């Protein structure tokens, strides 16, 4: 809501608080100052054109004589549309406009003193000028005082506040409502009758000017077919109006509210809305078909050409104003282009109504169509002031547009149940806020806010919510009002009361914490990505008929409609960006959801590049599958003694078919790790191997919080034995180790494959493998006893795999 300080001062006169006081006070009473438009401090004058003549030797220049009320001046201009008698803006020589200081110039023996200005040259926003003024000179109403500084005259030499009005305070979407708040906040005596005076919107108004006619127009009246959605509808007829530009007093108020001038009828309706909150609509009576106006729900889907040039389809959830043939307005939202006021309009039908807020907000939201009217109706207008506003409006229009008021108002009115009384106890106020208030304080705040109440309760007040305050439903609403005006600054911190009760760390928090610690220690940086995935990338991993893919109906980007089924997509994107910045050695992880058959929390990580950069004492080692395997198995899985098995993965869209393993815990696959498929890397433009792991976290959570049991440490010495042998190359090392472990039983502590060789000097069908075993027998054994166990192991290996021992 735009509030011009100049206008405010014009209303409150000497009582008006200063700009600084208002800037501080507005937020304290709940109106955030979103912006303050600073004043213009230039000087340009209002002048009247007295005479204009073409300059014969030129095609487009003319010579005009202008008057500032005291003197006349000569100017040369190219604006052919200048009207004799019209009021324009004039910058005399010496004025600086757009960084250029004007001088007197000589155009073919005619002195040109200064220049007439367009809206751009006086830095006006194009939303406050008429369509004509956008192309030509700034033309002010003919009754504008001349010889005055334009900025002073139009209150532009004052700051303007742009206030954020809380959603539940539609009463403050108006000058009048904000005046009530301001006068209450500053204790200014300014009763409602003064505040609501028509003279604040049109000072020249005189009651005696009003003309009434009893002449009967063919219009018969009003049919409201849906009283639920339209509880109150008032209509009035104005005959013989003269459509023109608005006079000065209306134009400067439009400027103060930052509203575009249209014509005197529409401008008057707008001024009323911005001052009194109530939206109005005007129809050209002679363009309506039939003799009635109907307020009804649309008949099936009905198409409607609105003022904004767009066509909307209306449904049975909406409400329309219609003549006997077609809708002429979407009720409370927007009128039609073929019933709007035109220059030729003579007779008008004026609407002043109360529509059900729910209906208007629903329609406005569905059509994505928000107007000044709809945003007020949707929040709830003051149905108590409709007659009053109607009277003010017809008086204003009759006074400004010269019409006569024809007959009585058309009235449809159903009883609106007034909101129930609210009983507030002062104890409740202090219970909720932690501060105290006296009955006197409370009463005086409510009085200032014009909220009626009875002092009939022992410990409180009985409040009768007024029709303009749609936000007052229960006692907390009153508490907020009292707190707002005693001041939120009175809320002082109390010492928090601690409950003495042990609360264990939640398992999922502990899991997150432990995993993050481990990943950090392993050299991983945590990444955070948004959860959206490009359609094209998802298609690389999952056929579109994959069950359980989750799509967003209204993505920000059309080609990015999926919630990510696998965060590898985002991690590869990050890897690519980092690699392009020469950060080629990466270890990244993320804890986040995969969206496939619902949402599942995963730990994802990615490694690529060298394990360390090359240094004076270190050769770099490129990360490979076994490095990834080491991280995978030794970190979370083995660290928390999670019993797991692996099997070659079938996920060949993400992973290289030769180098990927599924991890199985309790018979279900909880994740996969391995080399990322070269095709996927190619798609992302990554030219170095990348290894990726994903693992669901919920299945492993219970292992992370389990307390293990202590296993006694053996006093006996560990015993090391090495064994080297030839074996068929296709026999997996894992099986050999397994056989060794099964043969040796409990006493084997560790096995390390410390050499693996295929090639020269060895049969091509064989490989040489060397395994170091660490035993602990729980007691010291002689070399002969140890040798017996070694013999058993060799025998088993020989029996199963036909190995050949090497010396």
């Amino acid at each position, binding site marked *: 809501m735009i509030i011009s300080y100049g206008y405010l001062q014009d209303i409150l006169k000497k009582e008006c608080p200063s700009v600084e006081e208002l800037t501080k006070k507005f937020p*304290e009473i*709940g109106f*955030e100052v979103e912006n303050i438009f600073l004043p213009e401090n230039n000087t340009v004058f209002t002048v009247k054109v007295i005479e204009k003549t073409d300059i014969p030797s030129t095609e487009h220049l003319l010579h005009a004589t202008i008057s500032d009320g005291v003197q006349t001046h000569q100017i040369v201009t190219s604006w052919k549309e200048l009207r004799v008698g019209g009021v324009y803006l004039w910058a005399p020589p010496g004025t600086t406009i757009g960084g250029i200081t004007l001088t007197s110039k000589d155009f073919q023996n005619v002195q040109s003193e200064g220049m007439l200005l367009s809206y751009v040259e006086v830095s006006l926003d194009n939303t406050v000028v008429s369509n004509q003024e956008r192309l030509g000179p700034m033309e002010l109403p003919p009754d504008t005082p001349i010889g005055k500084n334009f900025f002073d005259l139009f209150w532009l030499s004052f700051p303007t506040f742009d206030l954020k009005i*809380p*959603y539940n305070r539609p009463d403050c979407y108006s000058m009048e409502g904000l005046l009530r708040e301001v006068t209450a906040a500053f204790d200014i005596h300014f009763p409602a009758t003064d505040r609501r005076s028509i003279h604040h919107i049109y000072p020249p108004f005189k009651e005696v000017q009003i003309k009434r006619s009893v002449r009967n127009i063919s219009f018969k009246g009003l049919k409201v077919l849906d009283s639920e959605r339209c509880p109150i509808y008032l209509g009035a007829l104005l005959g013989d109006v003269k459509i023109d530009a608005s006079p000065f007093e209306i134009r400067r108020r439009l400027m103060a509210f930052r509203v575009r001038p249209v014509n005197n009828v529409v401008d008057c309706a707008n001024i009323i809305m911005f001052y009194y909150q109530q939206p109005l609509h005007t129809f050209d009576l002679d363009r309506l078909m039939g003799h009635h106006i109907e307020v009804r729900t649309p008949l099936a889907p009905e198409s409607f050409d609105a003022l904004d040039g767009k066509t909307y389809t209306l449904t049975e959830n909406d409400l329309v104003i219609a003549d006997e043939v077609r809708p002429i307005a979407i009720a409370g939202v927007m009128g039609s282009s073929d019933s709007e006021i035109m220059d030729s309009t003579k007779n008008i039908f004026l609407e002043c109504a109360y529509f059900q807020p*729910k209906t208007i*907000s*629903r329609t406005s*939201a569905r059509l*994505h169509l928000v107007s000044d009217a709809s945003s007020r109706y949707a929040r709830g207008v003051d149905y108590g002031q409709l007659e009053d506003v109607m009277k003010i409006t017809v008086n204003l229009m009759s006074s400004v547009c010269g019409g006569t008021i024809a007959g009585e108002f058309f009235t449809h009115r159903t009883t609106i149940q007034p909101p129930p009384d609210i009983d507030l106890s002062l104890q409740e106020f202090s*219970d*909720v*806020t*932690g*501060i105290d208030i006296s009955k006197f304080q409370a009463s005086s705040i409510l009085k200032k806010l014009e909220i009626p109440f009875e002092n009939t309760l022992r410990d409180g007040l009985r409040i009768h919510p007024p029709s303009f305050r749609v936000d007052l439903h229960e006692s*907390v609403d009153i*508490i*907020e009002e009292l*707190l*707002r005006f005693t001041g*939120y*600054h009175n*809320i002082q*911190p*109390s010492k*928090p*009361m*601690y*409950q003495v009760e042990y609360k264990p760390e*939640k398992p*999922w928090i502990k899991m997150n914490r432990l995993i*993050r610690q481990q990943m*950090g220690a*392993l*050299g991983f*940086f945590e*990444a*955070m990505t*948004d*959860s*959206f995935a490009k359609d094209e990338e998802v298609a690389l991993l999952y056929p579109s008929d994959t069950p359980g893919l*989750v*799509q*967003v*109906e*209204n993505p*920000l980007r059309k080609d990015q409609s999926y*919630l990510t089924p696998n965060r590898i997509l985002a991690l590869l994107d*990050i890897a690519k960006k980092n690699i392009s*910045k020469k950060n080629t050695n990466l*270890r*990244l992880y993320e804890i986040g*959801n995969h*969206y496939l058959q619902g*949402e599942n929390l995963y730990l994802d990580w990615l490694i690529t590049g060298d394990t*360390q*950069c090359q*240094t*004076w*004492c270190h050769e770099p080692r490129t990360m490979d599958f076994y490095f990834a395997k080491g991280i995978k198995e030794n970190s979370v899985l083995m660290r928390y003694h999670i019993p797991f098995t692996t099997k070659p993965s079938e996920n060949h869209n993400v992973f290289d078919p030769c180098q990927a393993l599924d991890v199985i815990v309790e018979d279900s696959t909880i994740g996969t790790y391995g080399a990322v498929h070269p095709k996927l890397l190619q798609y992302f433009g990554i030219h170095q191997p990348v290894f990726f792991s994903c693992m669901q976290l919920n299945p492993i959570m219970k292992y992370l919080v389990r307390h293990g049991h202590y296993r006694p440490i053996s006093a006996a010495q560990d015993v090391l034995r090495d064994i080297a042998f030839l074996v068929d190359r296709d026999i997996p090392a894992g099986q050999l180790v397994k056989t060794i472990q099964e043969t040796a039983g409990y006493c084997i502590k560790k096995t390390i494959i410390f050499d693996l060789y295929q090639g020269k000097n060895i049969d091509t069908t064989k490989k040489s493998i060397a395994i170091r075993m660490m035993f602990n027998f729980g007691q010291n054994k002689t070399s002969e006893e140890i040798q017996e166990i070694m013999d058993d192991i060799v025998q088993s290996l020989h029996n199963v795999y036909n190995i050949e021992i090497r010396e």
Partner: protein
Amino acid sequence: MSEEGKPKIIEECKAKFEKRIQKATTAEDIEKLRIKYLGRKGEIRSLFGHIQEIPPEKRGEFGSHINELKTYMEQKIQSVSDQLENFSLDATTEKPYCDLTLPGVPFVMGHQHPISQIIDDLLDIFRSMNFDVVSGYEIEDTFHNFDALNIHQWHPSRNPQDTFYVDPEHILRTQTSAVQIRAMENGTLPLRIVSMGRCYRRDASDATHYPVFHQIEGLVIDKNVNFCDLSGILTEMMTGVFGTRVEVRFLPSYFPFVEPGAETFISCPFCGGKGCNVCGKAGEIELGGSGMVHPQVLRNVNIDPSIYRGFAFGWGIERIAMMKYQIDDIRLFYDNNIDFLEQF
């Protein structure tokens, strides 16, 4: 034979050895001593030569006495030679050159994302104040995200321009409040909870907006809590986050789920309220909404507002992190540039 049963000849040998070793002062002396006693033609060897003179039944015992003496001498020589060696290391000045400025092996230590570090800080703070932490799903139904919070069906925030819809009844949560609604539905009273997590708003990304952000929300429901208690909790919380005492200030504001509702500010932790670049000379920083839980929200989850009251707050964690680290572009958090992540 001596009284202790050790042959006299062995005792004498040991006594002489003791005298000599006390006089040894150089490595050379020690080496001479070693050769004299333990060498191939040394005293120990010659003691074994006397074994024929011993009656056969006592020869075993005699032999083990010599072995004992040998072990003793070996140890003694070793320990004296170690002492001499240490002494001479300290004394000599010549050492091999070692360039201590060469860098060590560059182990990479990773760590958490700045946002998750702030989350951890907040978890610590709220655990210390005895809050429970609750979590929930990111795909939420419209009842829990909106209706239960008193956000009516046609409220602009439900507009598909502002909220991501998965289907007409499900959205990507715009706040973690839904989690709190569930806690109120399920939980036993009183309740002291915080929820944190990823939320979504349909904002095109720029320096201050991103479609994903993290939120922390707190909720206390009890018989006897008021606005001043909210102020107390927030003061402790933000003092904890910034590590310096801050003051909390409220301005009235409207949120459908709190009444009275407030916009919350803290005194700028960087300038203490004097005005600096971080706070834009305002001396205070806006954090977000808070207030007393609207009685309708309590009724929506079958809590009797005439018995219980509550307060709540909900702020963006990115905003806190941006203040704390003076980051001016929210997108940096989601670019995951290593050069950025390394700094925290």
